[in-house]
């Protein structure tokens, strides 16, 4: 079975490597020092299990997982992160607290070999990621992938959001990016005094609005600085007016 270690500290990787020597059934195929390398290595090697640190440069472990189409099983390794620990506990995800002993490591591995590898990682991690994506760190940026390239978008740069099937299209100055999330998710994590759900399928950054025009019956259109026209429904108009203080 193939294993990848993703951790930005070389010594932290070496300790996992050392403990892995005692599990010949697990073959270490790659070591990565950040999330970007991690995404690439997972695609390339399709591992069965990854050991993943949370706090890493640029994008953290959770943000990295969001970018992986079909994530493998994960054993998280972290030193101290109260927020993440709560999420692990509530979703029965295994994790190792640094510094961890070989005994603790062996236990995590044998537990995974017995049961974990049969559980759908995608489902389990999906729920976990939904929980942690409302963490403070992830409320002021969104990580997306476009044509193999990873982009980190500060939420201030978002003009508006548009629902598109199972995705949400994030419109910015540089164009639109698709993110595999729901509108409800963004409504929950984004600042409600800045982003308003003006329509079933639209959410708009109010600092981008230049004017609001009437449009057919009870509906309106919000015209943004970029020239984009965002539909505003009857209830959306009421919400928008209250946030703008009209």
């Amino acid at each position: 079975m193939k294993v990848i270690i993703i951790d930005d500290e070389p010594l932290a990787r070496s300790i996992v490597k050392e403990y892995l020597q005692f599990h010949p059934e697990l073959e270490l195929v790659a070591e990565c020092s950040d999330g970007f390398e991690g995404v690439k290595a997972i695609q390339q090697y399709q591992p069965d299990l990854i050991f993943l640190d949370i706090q890493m440069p640029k994008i953290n472990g959770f943000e990295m997982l969001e970018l992986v189409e079909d994530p493998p099983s994960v054993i998280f390794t972290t030193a101290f992160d109260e927020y993440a620990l709560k999420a692990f506990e509530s979703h029965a995800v295994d994790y190792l607290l640094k510094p961890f002993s070989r005994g603790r490591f062996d236990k995590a591995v044998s537990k995974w070999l017995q049961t974990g590898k049969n559980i759908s990682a995608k489902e389990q991690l999906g729920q976990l990621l939904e929980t942690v994506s409302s963490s403070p760190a992830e409320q002021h940026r969104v990580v997306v992938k476009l044509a193999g390239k990873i982009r980190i978008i500060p939420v201030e740069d978002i003009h508006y959001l548009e629902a598109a099937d199972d995705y949400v299209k994030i419109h910015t100055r540089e164009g639109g990016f698709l993110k595999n999330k729901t509108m409800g998710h963004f409504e929950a994590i984004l600042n409600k005094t800045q982003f308003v759900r003006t329509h079933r399928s639209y959410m708009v950054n109010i600092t981008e609005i230049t004017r609001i025009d009437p449009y057919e019956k009870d509906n309106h259109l919000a015209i943004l600085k970029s020239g984009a026209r965002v539909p505003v429904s009857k209830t959306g108009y009421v919400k928008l007016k209250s946030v703008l203080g009209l």
Partner: protein
Amino acid sequence: MTRSPLNVSRFRNIFFAWWFVWACLHFLLITYYGFTVNMALIDSLISNGLLMGACGIVSNILRYYLPYSNRYIYVLLLCLTFSLSANALGKFILDLSLNDPAYRAYIPFLANTYWIRLGIDFLMICCMAVICVLWYTQEEEQENRQRKNDAEKLSRDAELYKLRQQLQPHFLFNSLNSISALIVSNPEQARNMIHQLSDFLRTTLRKEEEQWVKMEEELQSLELYLEIEKVRFGHRLSTAIVKDDKSGQMLIPPMLLQPVVENAIKFGLYDTTDDVIISISVSVENEMLKVTVQNPYDPETASPRHGTGFGLNSVKRRLYLLFARTDLVETSSGDHVFTTTINIPKHESDHH
């Protein structure tokens, strides 16, 4: 409980002197009207003795009961009651003590002067009451001010303590993890790192707010911290520290710079994936200690609002509590380098 003005010797002396002058005047006035020295003395002593007693009691009552704002009518009523009772009691005692045929002529005089006596007593007691009200109000205010000062100092101390005590658990556990890895691969370096970590922890635990430390000591502790981080992050992290000769002996609040360097590490190491140089330069300019910390950052993702981080806010707050100035921390960014400048005013007990 507040002190009574009569407990203060200066005030007490004035009180008794005034009483003595008044009793003498009273005595002289009565002899002037042709009464005997004996009679004048008895009258003066009894009347003024009672007046003094009434003043004493009024002052004590006001000590426990100060009228609420503008309800001074109660004080007037109090003074009236006491002047009436002092007079009635005076009349009764005088009637008794002058119950002798020799003093017969004095009784009508006493009756004729009742209103004058009452008026003078009332004015005297009012005078005393006004002095007491002013006195106690001022005492109360002083006590409040003192309490407020004490409370402020307590909360300030607590806040300063909290601002200092932000040793990152993340740093501690990750360092222990590195040591755990080194024990097998490089026992010598593992032991070295344990010593560095212990020295660093000791300096963070030891320091008290009042004891300012020399810049060179603070710098040593920062270097320890950076050495540990270098072990953790390997070749990615390097440091450049420059200091001028004068700065080493200058005093600074302990652990003031630690959050600044932590902030630099956080943004340098977690905001980029390249190699990172953290530079620290220390100099003395215009009698102020100037510390500059520089780290690389990525302007694309470090948005201005989240750029400064909690660490710098705590430093700003602490400098404000110590010097009541908000202009001692400056930050600037350009060309992928983020610069934090801290100016520390000279401590009174700096020696050269």
